């Protein structure tokens, strides 16, 4: 038979500190990230000044948060192409709200956005689970709808301004600790939440569902509900990103354009298999950092704006190819008479 040891002694062997266990999964992308950071240090020695570093963290916050959300959807076996549109919508809607009701407390608007993101996610989830629309199409549709709706509403030019207090999270630093941008705090909180979630029962069943939803369902998992939860959280993450982006730069009609593909790329860079069932959220977020680092590096190297995307393309393909991170479509068909494993 394969293997020798019993679980009992295996269980001892398994008592390696959790972080190490985690590391194994994250390894490849970490290599990439470290490589990029070293490159950055070489190109621009000043890069590692604490305040520059924090600036980098703050800059990465939206993408990392989006990646965390996107991870949940991808690992459960789906796609979320709507996050970019959600970010744009979030920014514009916030402006509209402040335009309609100038005195509005900023926390209210934040709440509205988070709820909005949640709602979008729930709709994505229900459409792709209950109505069995491939999530690629479901979220693509959502993307079109949101883009259209927001511009239809604002007639192409967002109205209203984002007041300072609302922009605090994206723009200013923690009072008392001027070196620490709020965005970084938010990032830390979201990141931690994501990790804890993935360690929870729900998180683990989510991965199992992405691996084999039929088996999961027969083990008592409420598949549709769980997948919908993943989309919902992705929506919320997008809303958070919208708050940060809007805060950082103020109103813009294209705040979120391109974020959906960046987020997916980041997750895949993290070694998460499209199709679900494998990969860690830490790796996904590391992938996002890598991507951001890559952008920064290219700018520093003065790579012509034009070539930037080309380089990005090459790196992504190579990274994924080298990392051997190839997407295996749903391994075997399961609606067939069973035969024994090979």
């Amino acid at each position, binding site marked *: 038979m394969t293997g020798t040891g019993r679980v009992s002694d295996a269980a001892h062997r398994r008592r390696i500190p959790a972080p190490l266990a985690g590391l194994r999964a994250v390894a490849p992308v970490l290599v990439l990230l470290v490589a990029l950071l070293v490159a950055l240090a070489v190109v621009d020695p000043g890069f590692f000044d604490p305040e520059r570093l924090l600036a980098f963290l703050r800059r990465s916050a939206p993408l990392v948060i989006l990646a965390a959300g996107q991870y949940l959807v991808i690992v459960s076996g789906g796609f979320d192409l709507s996050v970019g549109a959600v970010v744009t919508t979030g920014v514009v809607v916030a402006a509209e709200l402040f335009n309609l009701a100038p005195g509005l407390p900023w926390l209210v608007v934040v709440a509205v956005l988070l709820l909005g993101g949640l709602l979008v996610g729930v709709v994505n989830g229900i459409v792709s689970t209950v109505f069995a629309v491939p999530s690629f199409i479901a979220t693509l549709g959502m993307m079109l*709808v949101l883009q259209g709706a927001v511009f239809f509403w604002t007639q192409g030019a967002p109205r209203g301004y984002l007041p300072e207090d609302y922009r605090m999270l994206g723009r200013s630093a923690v009072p008392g600790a001027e070196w620490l941008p709020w965005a970084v705090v938010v990032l830390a909180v979201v990141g931690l939440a994501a990790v804890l979630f993935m360690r929870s029962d729900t998180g683990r069943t989510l991965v199992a569902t992405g691996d084999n939803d*039929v088996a999961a369902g027969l083990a008592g998992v409420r598949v549709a509900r769980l997948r919908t939860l993943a989309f919902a959280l992705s929506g919320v993450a997008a809303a958070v990103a919208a708050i940060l982006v809007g805060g950082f730069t103020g109103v813009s009609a294209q705040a979120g354009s391109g974020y959906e593909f960046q987020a997916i790329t980041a997750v*895949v860079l993290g070694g998460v298999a499209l199709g679900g069932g494998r990969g860690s959220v830490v790796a996904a977020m590391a992938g996002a950092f890598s991507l951001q680092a890559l952008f920064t590096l290219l700018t520093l190297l003065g790579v012509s704006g*034009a070539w930037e995307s080309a380089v990005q393309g090459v790196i992504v393909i190579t990274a994924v190819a080298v990392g051997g991170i190839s997407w295996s*479509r749903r391994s075997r068909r399961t609606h067939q008479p069973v035969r024994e494993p090979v």
Partner: protein
Amino acid sequence: MTAPSVAPAGRPRLRLGGPVGVVYLALVGVYLVGWLAVAARGGDFVTVGNTVTILQNSVALGLVAVGQTYVILAGSLDLSVAYLVSLTSLVTAQTMQTAGVVPGVLAALAVAAVVGLGNGLVVTRLGVNAFIATLGMALILRGYLEHNYTGPAGAVPTSFQHLGYDRVGPVPVSVFLLAATVAVTWFVLRRTRLGHHIYAVGGDEEVARLSGVPTTRTRVTAHVLCALCAGLAGVFLASRLGAGAPWAGTEAQYDLVSIAAVVLGGTLLAGGRGGVAGTVGGVLILATLDNVFDQLAVDPFFKNVVRGVVIVVAVALYARRGVDARRRRMRGGS
């Protein structure tokens, strides 16, 4: 070993076409609704002129979507087509400016083939999943375009512009180009071994491999054919625009919209089921919608909203079968 006999599954064509019937019903539905709506506003929708416009506006997307059908059926997809269309439009125009029509077309198709080959090899040999592989290719093409082009370039001879502007009777010449491409594709998918292998690879790559299907070659070929169709779209646009435009393909979001059109045509996004007939239906639905909104002077932004809704709702309808399939799977039964 005997068992209760099972009825044959009707003509293969119909079967492979997936819910083609549904697609065309939907098309007719959209058309009728459009008709009523426009008529209600005192316009007339069912005119030769208008029908021609719908067809004309289907050509470019149609060509791309037909190509997309190959890869999606083969269990892949291609996100680089939009930039490829732009690129080939430029190649066409510039080659024609110097070397004449035929070399222009050939050059464009050659470039397309190379790009398709690249996609195919990255997907099969490097084992990068199609989404990332073609997304990467898209970024590369984009970089090349932005770096080398600052606007429309090249110029096609007037003789060649007839492809974009002439009509046979009321029907634009370019519509025949699309029709021909569709016919060839239908033929390839239904009647050739390649076609059978494409369905097999898309249905279950491992099974195909064990059955002696050259899976790698099949996938690569599918990607090349897809790229060639995008190339044709580029050639067509060049003749229509009289020059090549670096945004010819991207402005219209041909990458995502073509995928949507294919799925709207009832082809399984996962591959292995569907066909080009449905794709044509999907494209026509989108074109008709667009036209109806133009007629109704609907706010262009609102178009996207409806587009999105229609796509999702339609696919949800087809997915009914998907749900059954899933139930069957749950039962682990035949």
